[in-house]
C-alpha cells in the first residue's frame, strides 16, 4: 500500500522512539508505540523500526508489551536475526509471577514463526504445560502444535505427546480441547489423536463443560471411535441425544455427524437421527444470520438425498422472502422441488411462479427450471404456467422457459404437442445462444407439428453470417436437415443455401465439418440420412430415473458439516444428473465450466492417446443403449454417443466430471473422458494392476455362466465360454487434471456397472 510520506513517518517515529527522555516517560513511550502500530495497520511499512521496538519490549508495562508483541509478530519473519534479541525478554517473561504475562509471552514466542528459534522455545513450552494457571497451559498446549507446524518433518517428541495425552485430564475444559487440537496436528501422519474407550468416555462425560467450540471439536474427533459393543454404542447415543437437539446449529450438526458415523452399520438408527434433527434444522433455517441459514439449507439438501420425505409437511418454511439474497432463494427453490407431493403441488407451483419474475435473473431461471422439473411428474399444471410465462414477452424468461421445455419434452414426450404450440412465434424474443439452441432443437425434432417452422428457420439461415455461437450454427444445420426429411419441398432451397455457406465460407472447423458430413450423407440418399438423423425419441424406460431413489446415508455423510455442501453444484441435483436428452448433452448449459468446449474440441485427439485398460464383460454389447445409459447415469457417468447394439466394432463414449471426495485439503474436480471399445477380437496385451480385477471377475463370471448354462444345450454353453475367454472390452481413459485416485475410483465404478449390466 503506497502511503505518502511514509519514509518521513518512519524517520520521525524512530527519532522519538530512541529519545531517552521519551523512553523514561512511560506514557509518552506508550503513545509513540501506539503510533507505530497505527501506522502499521494503515499499511505503512514500519519494519525499519524493528530494533527500536525490540528495545521497547523490555518493560513492565503490560499494555506496552502487548503492543510491541503485535508489531514483532508481524515483522519477525523479515528480521530473523534481530528477533533472537527478543527471545531473552520473552523467556524472562515466562517466569513472571503474573499468569497473564506468562501466557502472553508464551503465545507470542510461538507466534514468531521462526524455525531458528525453536530450540529456545521448547524449554518454556515444557514448563508451560505444567503451569498452575489454566490460561498458560492453554497457550502452551497449542504452542506445541505451532512448533510442529513450523518443522513438520522433525521428529515427534514422544515425551511431549505423552504429556499432552495426560493433559486431556486437565481440570480446565479449554486445555483439554486444545490438547485434542494439538495432538490432531502433531500426529496427523499417524491419523490424528488415538481414541480409545477410556478417552472416549472421559471426553463424553466432560462434553457439557465445554463451550460450543470445544463441543464441536470433541464431537468431531470422536467420529473416529468405534464402540466395542452394541450396548456401548447405544449408551453413547443416548448420552448424545441432548446435543442432537441443541439450539446451537454447529453443535447440532457436529452431533448428527457423529451419530451418522457411529451408526454407519445401522442405517435405521441413522434415519431416526435425521428425523430427530428436523426441528433444530428448521430452526437453523430461520436463523437471523443469512450465512447460517444458507449453511442449514445446504445441509438439508444433503439430508433429503437419503430421506426425501423429511421436510414434506414443512414446505412453507422454505418459501422465499422478498428481501432474501439470491443464494438463499436459489437453495430454497432447489429444496422446494424435492418437497413436492400431491397435496402441496398447487400451492408450491403458485409460489414458484411468483419467483419466475424475480429481479435477479438467475433466481428467475432457477424458479423456471424448478417448475420444469416438477413438470416431470405434474406436466399439465407446469406447462400451463410455463406457457403463461412466455406471454410475458421478457427476453430472459422466454429463453429459460424454452430451455426448460426442451428438457421436459425429452423426459415426457407426451407434452410435445403443448410445447410445440407454445414455442411457436417466440423466436423473436430469444437473444442468447443457449435459448436459441434449445429452440432450434425443438423446431428440428418436432418440425412436422409446427406449421411455421420453415419461416422461422429461414430467418435464422438468413442471419447465419452474423451468428456468433458455434453451437447454434451446428444445431441450425441439424434442425434444417431434419426438417428437410419431413418437409422437403419447403426446406430444400434454404438447406442448399445453408450448406453452401457453411462449407464454402464458414471458418469454424466444427461447423464446416458437420455441414460436409450432412452434404455427403444426403448424397447417399434420403433413407441413409434418415437412419442417421432420425431423432432418438426418449424411451419410456427413462421414466424410472425421475423419482430419484433414496441414497444410503454414507453416500454423503463424509462431507456433512464441512465446507463442501456449500460449494455451488456440490450437491448433485436431479437436473444435473439427468438433464435433457443426451443429444444436447455436449452443449448442456452449464454456466460455470467449459465442459462443452473441452468435449467437442478435444475428443477426437484425446481418447485414443489415453490410458487403456481391459474389462472382461463381453456380453455388454448386446445390452440396449437405453439401459446402458440409465445405468451409467445412476453412477453419474454421462454417455455421449454409442453404436447400436450387436454391431461390431461396438463403441461407447462417455464422460464424467468428478468431485474430489478423498482429501479434505483440495476441492478440485477432474474431467474424465472414456471410450469403451469391443472389437470382437482377442486381446493380446494386458496391462496394469487393474487387470487382476478384470481377470478375477472374468473367472467368476465364467464359472457362474457354466453353472447357469447346465440346463441349456452343450454346444451353446461352449460357445459362450469361448466368447468370454477370449474377448473383452477395451477401456480407454483420458483425464484432466491428473488425479490418479479419481481415475482408479472411476475405473472400478465403471467395471462394476459393466459387470452388473452384462450379468443381467
Amino acid at each position, binding site marked *: 500500500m503506497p502511503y505518502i510520506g511514509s519514509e518521513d513517518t518512519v524517520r520521525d517515529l524512530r527519532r522519538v522512539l530512541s529519545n531517552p527522555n521519551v523512553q523514561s516517560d512511560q506514557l509518552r513511550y506508550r503513545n509513540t508505540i*501506539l503510533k507505530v502500530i497505527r501506522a502499521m495497520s494503515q499499511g505503512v511499512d514500519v519494519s525499519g523500526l524493528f530494533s527500536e521496538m525490540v528495545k521497547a519490549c523490555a518493560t513492565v508495562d503490560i499494555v506496552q508489551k502487548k503492543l510491541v508483541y503485535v508489531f514483532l509478530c508481524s515483522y519477525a519473519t523479515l528480521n530473523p536475526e534481530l528477533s533472537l534479541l527478543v527471545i531473552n525478554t520473552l523467556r524472562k517473561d515466562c517466569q513472571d509471577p503474573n499468569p497473564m504475562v506468562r501466557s502472553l509471552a508464551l503465545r507470542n514466542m510461538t507466534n514468531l*514463526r521462526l524455525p531458528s528459534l525453536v530450540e529456545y522455545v521448547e524449554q518454556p513450552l515444557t514448563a508451560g504445560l505444567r503451569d498452575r494457571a489454566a490460561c498458560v497451559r492453554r497457550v502452551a498446549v497449542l504452542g506445541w502444535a505451532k512448533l510442529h507446524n513450523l518443522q513438520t518433518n522433525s521428529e515427534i517428541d514422544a515425551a511431549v505427546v505423552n504429556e499432552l495425552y495426560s493433559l486431556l485430564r486437565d481440570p480446565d475444559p479449554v486445555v483439554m480441547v486444545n490438547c485434542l487440537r494439538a495432538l490432531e496436528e502433531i500426529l496427523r501422519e499417524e491419523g490424528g489423536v488415538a481414541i480409545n474407550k477410556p478417552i472416549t468416555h472421559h471426553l463424553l462425560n466432560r462434553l457439557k463443560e465445554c463451550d460450543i467450540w470445544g463441543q464441536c471439536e470433541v464431537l468431531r474427533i470422536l467420529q473416529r471411535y468405534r464402540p466395542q459393543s452394541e450396548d456401548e454404542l447405544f449408551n453413547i447415543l443416548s448420552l448424545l441425544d441432548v446435543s442432537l437437539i441443541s439450539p446451537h446449529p454447529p453443535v447440532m450438526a457436529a452431533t448428527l455427524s457423529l451419530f451418522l458415523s457411529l451408526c454407519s452399520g445401522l442405517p435405521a438408527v441413522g434415519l431416526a437421527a435425521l428425523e430427530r434433527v428436523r*426441528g433444530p434444522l428448521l430452526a437453523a433455517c430461520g436463523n437471523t444470520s*443469512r450465512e447460517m441459514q444458507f449453511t442449514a439449507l445446504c445441509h438439508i439438501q444433503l439430508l433429503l438425498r437419503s430421506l426425501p420425505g423429511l421436510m414434506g409437511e414443512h414446505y412453507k418454511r422454505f*418459501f422465499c422472502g422478498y428481501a432474501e439474497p*439470491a443464494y438463499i432463494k436459489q437453495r430454497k427453490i432447489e429444496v422446494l422441488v424435492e418437497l413436492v407431493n400431491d397435496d402441496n403441488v398447487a400451492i408450491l407451483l403458485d409460489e414458484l411462479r411468483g419467483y419466475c419474475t424475480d429481479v435477479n435473473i*438467475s433466481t428467475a431461471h432457477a424458479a423456471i427450471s424448478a417448475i420444469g422439473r416438477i413438470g416431470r411428474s405434474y406436466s399439465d399444471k407446469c406447462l400451463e404456467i410455463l406457457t403463461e410465462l412466455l406471454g410475458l414477452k421478457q427476453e430472459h424468461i422466454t429463453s429459460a422457459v424454452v430451455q426448460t421445455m426442451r428438457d421436459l419434452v425429452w423426459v415426457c414426450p407426451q407434452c410435445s404437442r403443448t410445447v410445440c404450440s407454445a414455442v411457436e412465434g417466440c423466436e423473436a424474443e430469444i437473444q442468447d445462444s443457449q435459448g436459441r439452441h434449445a429452440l432450434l432443437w425443438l423446431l428440428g425434432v418436432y418440425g412436422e407439428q409446427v406449421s411455421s417452422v420453415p419461416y422461422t428457420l429461414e430467418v435464422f439461415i438468413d442471419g447465419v453470417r452474423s451468428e456468433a455461437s458455434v453451437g447454434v450454427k451446428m444445431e441450425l444445420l441439424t434442425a434444417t436437415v431434419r426438417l428437410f426429411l419431413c418437409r422437403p419441398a419447403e426446406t430444400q432451397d434454404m438447406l442448399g443455401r445453408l450448406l453452401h455457406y457453411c462449407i464454402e465460407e464458414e471458418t469454424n472447423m466444427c461447423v464446416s465439418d458437420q455441414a460436409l458430413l450432412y452434404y455427403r450423407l444426403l448424397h447417399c440418399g434420403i433413407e441413409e440420412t434418415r437412419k442417421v438423423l432420425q431423432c432418438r425419441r426418449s424411451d419410456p424406460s427413462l421414466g424410472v430415473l425421475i423419482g430419484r431413489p433414496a441414497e444410503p446415508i454414507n453416500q454423503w455423510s463424509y462431507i456433512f458439516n464441512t*465446507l*463442501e455442501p456449500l460449494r455451488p453444484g456440490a450437491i448433485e441435483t436431479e437436473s444435473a444428473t439427468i438433464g435433457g436428452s443426451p443429444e444436447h448433452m455436449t452443449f448442456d448449459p452449464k454456466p460455470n465450466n467449459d465442459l462443452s468446449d473441452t468435449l467437442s474440441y478435444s475428443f477426437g485427439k484425446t481418447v485414443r492417446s489415453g490410458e487403456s485398460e481391459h474389462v472382461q464383460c463381453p456380453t455388454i454389447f448386446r445390452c440396449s443403449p437405453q439401459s446402458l445409459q440409465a445405468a451409467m447415469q445412476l453412477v453419474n457417468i454421462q454417455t455421449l454417443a454409442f453404436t447400436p447394439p450387436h454391431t461390431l466394432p461396438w463403441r461407447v463414449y462417455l464422460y464424467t466430471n468428478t468431485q474430489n471426495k478423498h482429501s479434505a485439503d483440495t*476441492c478440485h474436480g477432474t474431467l474424465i473422458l472414456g471410450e469403451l471399445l469391443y472389437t470382437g477380437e482377442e486381446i493380446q496385451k494386458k496391462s496394469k494392476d487393474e487387470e487382476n480385477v478384470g481377470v478375477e471377475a472374468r473367472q467368476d463370471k465364467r464359472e457362474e455362466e457354466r453353472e447357469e448354462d447346465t440346463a441349456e444345450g452343450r454346444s451353446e454353453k461352449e460357445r459362450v465360454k469361448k466368447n468370454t475367454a477370449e474377448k473383452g472390452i477395451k477401456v480407454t481413459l483420458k483425464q484432466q487434471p491428473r488425479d490418479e485416485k479419481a481415475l482408479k475410483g472411476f475405473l472400478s465404478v465403471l467395471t462394476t456397472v459393466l459387470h452388473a449390466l452384462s450379468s443381467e
Partner: protein
Amino acid sequence: MSASAIFVLDLKGKVLICRNYKGDVDMAEIDHFMSLLMQHEEEGLICPVMAHGNVHFMWIKHSNLYLVATTNKNSNASLVYSFLYKLVEVFTEYFKELEEESIQDNFVVVYELLDELMDFGFPQTTDSKILQEYITQEGAKLEVAKTKVPTTVTNAVSWRSEGIKYKKNEVFIDVIESINSLDVTVNANGSVMSSDIVGSIKLKTMLSGMPELRLGLNDRVLFALTGRDKGKTVVMEDVKFHQCVRLSRFESDRTISFIPPDGESELMSYRINTHVKPLIWIESVIEKFSHSRVEIMVKAKGQFKKQSVANNVEVRVPVPSDADSPKFKTSTGHAKYVPEKNLVVWTIKSFPGGKEFLMRAHFGLPSVENDEAEGKPPITVKFEIPYFTVSGIQVRYMKIIEKSGYQALPWVRYITQSGDYQLRTNV
C-alpha cells in the same frame, strides 16, 4: 474449525485489520476477495463462500465492514460463521457500534481481542465478560467494566461478582415477542404463508449480594409434568438460556433457576411456531394505469383484543420508482411519500384493536415508461403492542432468595413487536 486468518475489510476491500493465525495461507490472498465479490455480484450470484484456487473465503457483512475468514481446509462452515458472528457480538459490546470508524479508533483493542478470541485458528475465550480480564486497554469502553470482574479461575459464578449493593432491591422483567410473518393474498381473505414468534425475556437486575432467582412461566411441559391443567399454557421451541441458568434443573423439572448477572442481560429466548392471525391485517388494491397514474387503496385492520392498543403503527407501501405528484387521503394518521425509498409511509400513532382504517393514495406516472425491471416488494408493517403477548406467555412468579433475606420487587412488562412482517401485494 481451522480458520487460517481473519480479516476486517472496509467496503472498498481495504484491509483495516487482520490477524494471521496459522500462517498456512498467504496473507496476500485477501486481495482477490474484493474482485471475486464484484464478479459474483455482477453475475447476481453472491455467495457467502468464495474460492480462489484452494483458498476459501467465508465472509459476513456488518454495517460497512466485511469480516472474512480464509481457510485452505475443508473446514466446518457453520462453525466459522458462528465465530464471525461471535466476533461481531464481542466487538459490538466493546465499541457499541461496530463500523469502520470504531475499528480504526480502537484498533489496539481489536488486536488484543483477536489475540484472545482465537489461537492457531481455534476459538479460545469468547465470553465477553471473561475477556475483560485479559484486555488491558483503557480505551475499551465496556459499560459493565465498572464492576470488578472476578477471576474465572477462582470463582464459580463467572458472570457476577460478590459484594454488589443496592439501596432498593428490584428486578425488571421484559417479555418481548416479535412476529415474523410472510403473508400472501391468495384470494380475498388471504392466508398466512408462514409465521413465527421469536420471544425473549430480558432482565434488569438491581439486587444486592448473591441472590438465587426462580422464574415461573406458564410452560405447557411444566404444567403437564406437575399435573396441573388450568389456564392457558404455551409450548416453547428452541429455548436458549443465558449461561447463568442451571440447564440440568431445567432439563429435569423445567425449573428456571439462576443467579442473575448484574445489570441488563437476556435471560432466555424462545421460538413459537403456531399459526397466528396476523395482528394487523392489510388489504391492498394497487391499480397501475401505465403512462398515467397509480391508485393505491390500503385497508388496515387490527385483529387483536379491543382493550389493547398498537402504538406507532407504520404501514410501508411500495410505489413505482418513477411515480410523481402524490396525493393522499387517510381516515386516520397521516401518509408521507418517501421518494428515495419508493415508499408511502402511513403512520398511525395509536391503533386500537378491532378498528379498521383506510388510506388512499394517488400518484402520477410519466408517459415515458421506465424499462428497468422492478420487483414486487411487499408491504411491510411495523407496530408495537404493549401489555400483550401473542403467544400468551405469562410470568407466573419470580422468587428472589438471598442470604440476608431482603425483600425485593419484581416488575414485569410485556410487549409485542413486529419483526419481519410482510404482506405481498397483488400488482
